[in-house]
């Protein structure tokens, strides 16, 4: 078999790279990676925001329409005016006071961050939302009136819209023109869940692993095992051992030449004990500069 076939670790790394992320360096110097928001969710948030702002405008229009002032002849114009006065300030003020979140972005768990590793500034928020008027709303309104325009303007509008839509697809961080000028980007809101430490307690001292046993695997395999074990915790484990647990335990035993017998009933305990020993071993190696990325670590490149 040729080397063209990717190892699972390589595939995982490639997948990781494909996931768009933005590395931000806060003033404290510890870099963090934000997930760049998908264009679909941003579109969703934009639609929600448009609905919300139109809802507010309508809510203001209805009492006016019921009042004795006869606004009938100017209703359309009044609507356009209110939209103008509510729309841009809504985006600017909500992003400024709610730290990069409009209501639509809140609902879809997105937020605007500044790409320079500092907080959002008033300038950045105003810039990206003024450009939104030119980028999103002006072509949007003009599209509605497109059939009344001449061919030259229709072609101009078409080119304009195509360019605007292409920009976020063409750059890594999915920035629209307003984002580029304001040096901002939209990311998914980080969520934090503290999972338990799988290596907290020694599950059993029955299984003793030597350096020869632990020299096979690297970080990638260890963390894959971690994901598996989080789905099969030791506490509250069912009486009958899941067949995948038995299969995995057998696989690992074979790979590391573990000679002591492992009864099927103890397969889960064996896996947890192995995880703990392997992690302690790899962490110690790493501390001394021997970073083992995956099981191919000892092979020549």
């Amino acid at each position, binding site marked *: 078999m040729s080397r063209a076939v990717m190892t699972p670790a390589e595939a995982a790394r490639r997948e990781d790279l494909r996931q768009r992320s933005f590395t931000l360096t806060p003033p404290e110097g510890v870099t963090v990676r934000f997930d760049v928001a998908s264009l679909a969710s941003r579109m969703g948030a934009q639609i929600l925001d448009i609905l919300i702002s139109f809802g507010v405008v309508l809510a203001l229009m209805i009492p006016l329409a019921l009042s004795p002032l006869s606004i009938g002849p100017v209703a359309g*114009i009044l609507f356009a*005016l209110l939209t103008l006065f509510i729309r841009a300030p809504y985006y600017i003020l909500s992003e400024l006071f709610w730290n990069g979140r409009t209501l639509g972005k809140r609902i879809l768990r997105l937020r605007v961050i500044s790409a320079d590793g500092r907080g959002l500034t*008033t300038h950045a928020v105003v810039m990206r939302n003024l450009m939104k008027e030119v980028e999103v709303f002006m072509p949007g309104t003009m599209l509605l009136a497109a059939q009344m325009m001449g061919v030259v303007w229709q072609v101009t509008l078409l080119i304009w819209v195509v360019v605007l839509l292409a920009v976020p697809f063409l750059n890594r961080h999915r920035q629209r023109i307003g984002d580029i*000028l*304001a040096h901002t980007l939209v990311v998914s809101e980080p969520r934090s869940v503290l999972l338990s430490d799988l290596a907290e307690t020694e599950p059993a001292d029955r299984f003793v692993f030597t350096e020869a046993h632990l020299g096979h695997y690297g970080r990638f395999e260890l963390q894959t095992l971690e994901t598996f074990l989080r789905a099969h915790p030791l506490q509250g484990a069912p009486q009958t051992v899941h067949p995948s647990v038995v299969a995995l335990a057998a696989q690992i035993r074979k790979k590391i030449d573990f000679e002591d017998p492992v009864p099927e009933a103890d397969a889960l305990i064996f896996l947890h004990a192995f995880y703990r020993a392997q992690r302690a071993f790899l962490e110690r190696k790493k501390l001394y500069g021997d970073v083992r990325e995956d099981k191919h670590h000892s092979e020549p490149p």
Partner: protein
Amino acid sequence: MTDAVQIKSTRFRAQRQADWQALEALVDKAEARGPAGLTLEEAQTLARLYRKAATSLATAREISLDRGLLLYLESLVERAFLAVYAPQETLSGVVSGFFSRSGPRAMRASLMALLLSAGAMLLGGFIAWMLYFQDNTWYHTFVPADLAAGRGPGATTQYLRDGLFDGPESFVASLAVFAAYLFSHNTRVALFGFALGVFACVPGFLLLFYNGLMIGSFAALYADRDLGYELFGWLSVHGVTELSAIIIAGAGGFRMGFAVLFPGALSRRDALRVAGRDAVKLAMIAVLMLLAAGLLEGFARQLITSTEIRLAVGWGIGALWLAWFALAGRRTA
């Protein structure tokens, strides 16, 4: 293997976990209520715990292979960073800062662009004026029919005069004029003038130039009928503010265009960002002035029918704008 001993990364976690959870609770609170929702003591604790968590993250990356822990710490540091470095502005601070300092300063920093922008429009006006007196059919070339609304070389002088002094009768009709104005030609010119400046100044220049052509044609038509002074008064009421707004919007565009053409030592992207700081403020000022011009056109212009008072109002307001741009925010705070 001795059992009682925890592995190093587990011990590391056990010692710090309480701090992380305290930080998470504070971040939850800050996210729900905004930065103002924390007491001073909580805010100080938030900043302190954030720095500790950032250090923990840096250490954990070196010593721990617990993926669950690394992901948790990273997201916690991200959320705490956003909470600590949240914008601290207040609405009144933003507004007063703009009016008293940053707005006029941006204007003074953009003198070249303003001159160029005004020059483009004046040039257009001058050329149209000259052409009209050679051959008045040029008027139809420069002024689109829907904008002219019957006002052209073929119209009677009486018709032209009536247009200058008649007005809407009611409040609602004034509102309609105001709104129609806002969405009319000039607002679009201003917006495009700003947006098109980015493309290396050329489309923005042409737009301002063309706008000048139209105004020049109008002026020549009325001057030809000896209504020049009356037109000047009619235009002055809102035109001083409105044409300045267009020039300012165009100047904002030129600032961006200059950055694209002559980025200097910066990359074009960075040069655009730097120029954008002033350009955005010019755009805001232009929007503000267009609103004022809309109010003047919808309400003031037809209420005041004396040409002298029209001149006084129009240029008086112009002088106020100029005073704001020239004088505000001079002192360094």
